[in-house]
């Protein structure tokens, strides 16, 4: 599938007034609100477009599986630092960008959005647009490639993305501490102001796991500063957090994703809380009253998303204020005036 084929299909859908539900590997169908419209599979638009390891840039078509891209980078000792979730082996980079999710390394090296350098996309008029580029620094024009990140395909069909990549750390090791939640948050806050090469954290059920990444000597020095016990076979833990295959995420109960200032104290919500990102990302399960949850979070500067399960026909992201909502609507209409692309996936009225 070529970019022109995608543009043509969107043009036809617009002419027919028939909305499209854009689909890559289909591994993130559960993200956002229930998809509406005719399924439009773009996974056959795939392949690496450009990769020169000494440039620290890789460009690939939307349907390229994340695993394929990451395997190629690993051959050259490089990585996509944001550890986007791979819910199924055929998860694509287009889907990763549309969902905008980042994994355990995010607080220390940056989010998926931070590493997007450029994107090619098809807007709701069927027009092929190129934003950003394949260079590290580029401030020409509005940063519309980053605006695609997390927009759940409501602004354009992403056909190609260029990412900045980084050298992969030579060594990664994990330490474990027996801390309750409050102590873990305090510990991470104080570790966060010291130059220790942290690269992941997880607190659950009285145990805090911390990953260190870097050179052998740097990691060893970090281990001495932090203390705790070394954990062997730690890859499985971090993979299970990245892909939410950890037993904490099992079952059909609603999963809530809470984004908070990292040092926010324990929120005192019912049930277990799994804390990642040095305290900045907290997961809870079960039925919660949305308004009560949002009220609790707003006291600490946080926000909540109904991440998985629960009522996907209702809103799953908190409502923006009236002025922001108006800007969202106008922004959506600027890209997709007839609401052909993933209508209702992000908010019911977009």
């Amino acid at each position, binding site marked *: 599938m070529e970019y022109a084929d995608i543009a043509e299909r969107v043009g036809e859908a617009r002419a027919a007034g028939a909305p499209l539900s854009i689909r890559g590997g289909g591994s993130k169908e559960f993200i956002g609100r229930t998809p509406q419209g005719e399924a439009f599979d773009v996974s056959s638009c795939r392949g690496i477009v450009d990769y*020169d390891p000494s*440039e620290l*840039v890789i460009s690939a078509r939307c349907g390229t599986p994340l695993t394929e891209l990451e395997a190629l980078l690993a051959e050259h*000792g*490089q990585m996509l630092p944001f550890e986007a979730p791979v819910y199924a082996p055929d998860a694509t980079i287009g889907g990763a960008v549309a969902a905008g999710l980042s994994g355990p390394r995010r607080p220390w090296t940056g989010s998926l*959005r*931070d590493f997007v350098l450029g994107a090619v996309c098809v807007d709701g008029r069927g*027009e*092929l*647009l*190129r934003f950003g580029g*394949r*260079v*590290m*620094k*580029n*401030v*020409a*024009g*509005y*940063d*519309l490639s*980053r*605006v695609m*990140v*997390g*927009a759940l395909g409501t602004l354009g069909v992403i056909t190609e993305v260029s990412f900045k990549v980084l*050298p992969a750390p*030579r060594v990664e090791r994990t330490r474990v501490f027996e801390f309750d939640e409050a102590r873990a948050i305090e510990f991470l806050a104080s570790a966060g*102001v*010291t*130059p*220790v*090469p942290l690269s992941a954290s997880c607190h659950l059920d009285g145990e805090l796991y911390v990953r260190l990444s*870097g*050179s052998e*000597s*740097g990691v*060893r*020095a*970090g281990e001495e500063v932090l203390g705790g016990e070394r954990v062997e076979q730690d890859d499985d833990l971090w993979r299970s957090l990245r892909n939410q295959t950890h037993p904490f995420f099992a079952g059909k109960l609603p999963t809530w994703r809470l*984004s*908070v*200032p*990292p*040092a926010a104290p324990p929120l005192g919500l019912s049930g277990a809380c799994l804390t990642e990102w040095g305290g*900045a*990302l907290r997961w809870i399960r079960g039925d919660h009253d949305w308004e009560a949850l949002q009220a609790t979070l707003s006291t600490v*500067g*946080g*926000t909540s998303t109904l991440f998985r399960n629960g009522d996907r026909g209702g809103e799953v*992201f908190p409502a923006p204020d009236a*002025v922001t909502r108006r*800007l969202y609507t*106008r*922004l959506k*209409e*600027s*890209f997709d005036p007839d609401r052909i692309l993933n209508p209702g996936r992000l*908010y019911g009225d977009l």
Partner: protein
Amino acid sequence: MATFAPDTRIRSALAPGAIVDRLIPVVGEDHVLHRPEQLAPYECDGLSAYRSVPLAVVLPGSVEEVCEVMRVCSENGVPVVARGAGTGLSGGALPYEHGILLVLSRFNRILSIDPDNRLAVVQPGVRNLAISEAVSNLGLYYAPDPSSQIACSIGGNVAENAGGVHCLKYGLTVHNILALKVVTVDGELIEVGGPRLDSPGYDLLALMTGSEGLLGVVVEVTVRLLPKPASARALLASFDDVESAGRAVADIISAGVLPAGLEMMDNPSIRATEDFVHAGYPVDAAAILICELDGTAEEVDDQIVQVRDVLAKAGAAQVRLSNDEAERIRFWSGRKNAFPAVGRISPDYYCIDGTIPRRALGSILSEISRLSEEYGLAVANVFHAGDGNLHPLILYDANKPGEFERTETLGGRILEACVAAGGTITGEHGVGVEKINQMCVLFGDAELEQFHRVKAAFDPEGLLNPGKAVPTLARCAEFNAMHVHGGQVPFPDIERF
């Protein structure tokens, strides 16, 4: 002096006197400047070749006042150009003669510092360096460090998505801010992002950053703070030819090292800076590289061994390691003073801001040298080599008739060569008025139309910073036609039928 003819024909619906009368009750008489001698200091920003006098300069002192000023202006169709410290190099804060200049210099307070969450909430007029100074005792700093950091304001940094010498490892402004408070053109206040790592909804934080004052007025910024690295050391390597230096840059990256800074200077820049600050640069070298490594002391030691090895293999004539903090700062002093140093050897200089893929370094430097001869103007090159961001400095004399115009044309040609090499026309200075024509080379009509639609989504009447950053399609049609008529047909050596 150059004149800038904005594409738009937006004029205030109010007479100048009436605008002043409407704004005095909002911000007070002392904070509305309208007499010629009061307006003169504001007629340009860091791109002083372009000058224009606004109808009035308004200096609000609170967010409420900004909202009210914007309400008055939008109700009466008065264009507004926001300005911070006015150090920008692309004319982004050049006043609009039919509108007001909204100066945010009174917003100069750091509102809160939160070490546990590693963030600070600051007003837009706070200087970039003042943030790092205020949190230094906590072991923290704010990473983006444009060369103008002693003077430039954080609000302007957001508007331009400013970078600096540490971007390769630590990113630009967009990577180092968490939240903004923005006043819309209608005078409404919105919060974008928050004191956390992500927020649901469209990423207006990314959209606002680098939007050059065309979408809203930033009135508060929440910045991310980082722990100061335990150790930072710099290597200074000299090369007998520029190509080897360029290869060394690629080799360092390929070796899996991510330097905190990786800068290159060519011989004219080396000579100019050595005369000025005596940094100890080898004046006979064709090029020098400064490679800074930071992290834990152990990590830095490992990387020094690795990079020394790479530099030797790449053919470095000499490699020196900073032995202490004073020497590291001395290595950097030349680079950080390169612009004023060049200012000493030439009556005027013009700084270009193109970005290229690093592999094109050798070819772009040859092209710049060829263009330099063609236009009869000397060029000194300083270069954020790590991230491919070139700053050729064109040496000229504004008092010689026609020389500035020739300089501008040469600058435009250099940027177009960057685009041809797969790069872009601005890495960190912004488009402003300066590179508006080169936007026509970089983007097609479809992308430019989308930019205008985004602008209209935020500012339907086009009152915010009119005519900047995004050219109209008509302007591009004219520019592209002139380009051919001027005898500068692309690839003139190709036979045409």
